[in-house]
Structures are given as structure tokens and as C-alpha cells.
């Protein structure tokens, strides 16, 4: 069975597991501390020095702890505590408190630090995703604008650069199409208007008709030239559309009837 979890929850879970494992390891550490402490020479030494116990009793405890051997069990670390525990409570208590405090403190700091850092990174990624989702061909001017030098900022800057290039190429293409449309429009307008004017002229002579036909013929030639050029451009390498536009503008200009000075 698969449980679907959001990425955020997965991370939280991972950190919780890490903390639990650390705590288990820590408790094992404490366990070992108890065991070694009970067996330690110093402890015996302290017993001898400070208590009213008889020497024989101490010897017995020592013997007893020594004889209580770990080899009876396959995993010595999980063996139960020595059967006889004599704690000198203030010493042990201080050791345990100091160790516990330090270790727990370190675990918490490390875990929450990692967690926060990860959270921040995740938020940035979410921000980028959300913003990138908004960008389409009509909103190509949008940018992420994340400043900084870390990997995420660099990624978003690369993204912005890519968008710059895309937008430029889109603009070029749009410009090119507008240009081509205008160039096609001009001969069409000339043809259409000439026909209209001739049609509305009630006294048109044969000469008028001939003139108009010749003019239309010329304009049609221009149209087919433009169409050929457009075809050539689409066949040639379109990778460098900028050059094509420039070439094209020049080609178009030869066909125009533009008058610079009145």
C-alpha cells in the first residue's frame, strides 16, 4: 500500500525519524554508561573510600559484576543491567543531566537548522514553480528576478536569461510577420482600389481599362516575388531569424513605391 504524502510532509517525517533514531542511540549510550560505570574501577574505588560497607561486601560486588558476563547473550550491548546497582546518585545524576542536556540540545539544533534551511529552499522552489507556471506566450515579459549567488538563485537567473532570449525571438518573429503582412497588403490595396475606382467611373474609356490592367499585372508580379521570398526564408535556416528579417527588409524595400520627398 502506498501512502501519498506531500513533499513537505515527507521532509518533516524524515526529520522526525532522524530525531527518534538519535534519541535511541543516545539512550543506548546512557545504558552503556550505566554499565561501564557500575563495572568501573573508579566506582569500586569510591565505594572503598567512602562507604561504611565492609571490604568483603565490596569485593563481592566487584566479583559479582565481573562474573556477570556478557558472553551469555549474543548482543552484549542489549544485555540487561547488572543485577546489583549501587548508585551514588549525585555523581551519576550530574553526569546524566549534563550528557542528556548537551546531546538533546545538539540534536535539536542540528535537526531544526537543517529543517529550516530545507524549508527555505523548498519555498524558493515553490515560488519559482508558481511563477513559471504563469508564463505563457502572452506573458513572456514576466521574470523571476531572484537575486543572490546560491544554486537556486543561479537557476532562476538562468531561467530569466532563457526567457529573455525567447522573448526576443518571439518579438522578432512577430515583427517579421507584421512586416510581411504589410508588404503583402500594399499591392493588394493598390489592386483593389484601382478596380474599385474604375468600376465607379461611368465614363471609363478603353485606355483606362488597359492602364488599370497593366498596373494590376505589375502588382501581381510583386506579390508573387514577395511570396517567393517568404518561401525562401522559411526554407533557409530559420535559426538566425534576425538576419532573415534584415535581408528581407532590404528585399522588400526594392519593391516599394515609397517616395521620400514630396
Amino acid at each position, binding site marked *: 500500500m502506498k501512502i501519498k504524502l506531500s513533499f513537505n510532509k515527507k521532509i518533516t517525517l524524515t526529520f522526525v525519524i532522524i530525531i527518534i533514531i538519535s534519541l535511541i542511540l543516545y539512550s543506548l549510550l546512557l545504558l552503556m554508561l550505566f554499565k561501564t560505570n557500575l563495572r568501573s574501577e573508579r566506582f569500586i574505588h569510591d565505594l572503598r573510600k567512602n562507604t561504611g560497607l565492609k571490604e568483603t561486601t565490596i569485593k563481592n560486588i566487584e566479583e559479582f559484576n565481573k562474573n556477570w558476563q556478557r558472553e551469555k547473550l549474543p548482543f552484549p550491548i542489549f544485555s540487561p543491567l547488572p543485577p546489583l546497582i549501587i548508585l551514588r546518585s549525585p555523581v551519576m545524576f550530574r553526569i546524566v543531566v549534563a550528557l542528556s542536556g548537551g546531546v538533546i540540545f545538539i540534536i535539536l539544533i542540528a535537526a531544526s537548522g537543517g529543517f529550516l534551511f530545507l524549508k527555505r529552499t523548498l519555498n524558493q522552489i515553490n515560488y519559482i514553480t508558481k511563477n513559471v507556471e504563469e508564463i505563457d506566450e502572452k506573458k513572456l515579459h514576466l521574470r523571476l528576478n531572484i537575486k543572490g549567488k546560491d544554486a537556486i538563485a543561479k537557476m532562476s537567473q538562468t531561467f530569466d536569461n532563457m526567457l529573455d532570449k525567447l522573448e526576443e525571438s518571439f518579438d522578432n518573429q512577430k515583427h517579421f510577420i507584421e512586416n510581411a*503582412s*504589410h508588404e503583402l*497588403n*500594399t499591392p*493588394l*490595396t*493598390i*489592386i*483593389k*482600389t*484601382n478596380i*474599385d*475606382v474604375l468600376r*465607379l*467611373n461611368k465614363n471609363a474609356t478603353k485606355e483606362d481599362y488597359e492602364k488599370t490592367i497593366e*498596373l494590376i499585372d505589375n*502588382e501581381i508580379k510583386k506579390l508573387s516575388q514577395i511570396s517567393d521570398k517568404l518561401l525562401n526564408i522559411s526554407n533557409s535556416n530559420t535559426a538566425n531569424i534576425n538576419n532573415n528579417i534584415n535581408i528581407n527588409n532590404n528585399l522588400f524595400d526594392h519593391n*516599394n*513605391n*515609397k*517616395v*521620400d*520627398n*514630396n
Partner: protein
Amino acid sequence: MKVLIIEDEKLIADIIKKGLEYHRFSVDVAYNGKTGYNLTQQYEYDVIILDLMLPDIPGEEVCKKIRQDGNNAYILMLTAKKQDEDIVNGLNYGADDYLTKPFDFSVLLARIRALLRRNSKVKENILQAGNIKLFIDQEKVMVDSKEIELTKKEYMVLEYLLRNKGQLLSRNQILEHAWDRNADIFSNIVDTHIKNLRKKLGKSGDIIETVYGSGYRIKENK
């Protein structure tokens, strides 16, 4: 009525001029924005046909400048730009109408006539004074339901007078609105045409009143 065409494509400008002249307009042509703008400062035009993609100044700028001068001539933008935002922009710059290329010439003609109707009280295509009727769309003049043959210039003079019925019009004004800018302003060509016009209109020609030293006027209907 007088039209100015500002259009950089010579063939388009020339055919529009030819068509409009055939339909009894006097037409000036400018092949770039600067010349066009200068002409609007020198002469009084009724309608300005303005292309937007001009080589020197964009048409929108020309339109803005004309309006800044306080010139209220009707401006019709005639352009290949067909997008809604272009049309909105064009009209916002102060144009009165917008037509995209390629266009139908009869539509252009109808729109120009509609523009000329805008400020007049008469919303029909008929100008009337006394028993003289001028049918704008059919380009003919009738006196008592009898058609009168007029030359183009006579028709244009009569049209201008009828459009400004009751107003005193100087010879210069008549010259400006019925002739293009190649007219000789020192000749008495206006007087000659008025004389001929009166002759052709016969009795009804009395409706054209001479105001001494100033010009002419069509009498208001009683």
C-alpha cells in the same frame, strides 16, 4: 470639399486621389508626414486621410500635432494596422474614423461623406436651397426635378456654398475648399464659376447672393 491624403505608398495615394477627384472632391497629396503636416497648417481641409506607417513621423504623431493646432478637420485613418488596440489608439489620438487596408473604395467614399455630414443639421444625402437640390451620393443637381449638367468645378463650388447655407463665404474660402493647392489664387476663377453656375441654374441662380467686397452667400430659406 477638400481632402488631404497623407500616404507614403505613391500608387495608393495616387489612385485614391484619382478616385476622389472623379467623385468631385479637390484633393492634395503628401507622401510623408512632415509635408502632410505642413499642408494642414497652410490650407483648410475638410477631411484628412492619414496613413499610420509613414517613413518620417508616425501617423499617430501627425494626428496628435494636427489636433494640438486646434485643427478640427475630420481625420480618417487609413492603415494596414488591423488590431483592435491599434484602432482604439488611433481614435484616441483624435481621429474621427478608421479604415483598414485593403478597403473598398465605395466604403471610403461613403465614410468621407458621413464625416462631412457629422456637424450639419441635414442628415440626408441631399443639400437643398430653394428649389435647388444637390444629391450628394448620386453627384447630381436638380432644379425643380430637372437635372442640370454642371462641370466638376461648378458642382464643387455649389456643394460648398450649399453646405454652408446662410454663411458669407469669401472668394478665398471658396477657392480653398473647391480647388486643390495648385489653383492660382490671384485669378478671378471663382467669380467666373459663380457666373456660369448662375447661368445654368437659371432663375433659381438668384439664390446665390453677391456680398460686395466680401464674397458670396446662399440665401436662407424663407
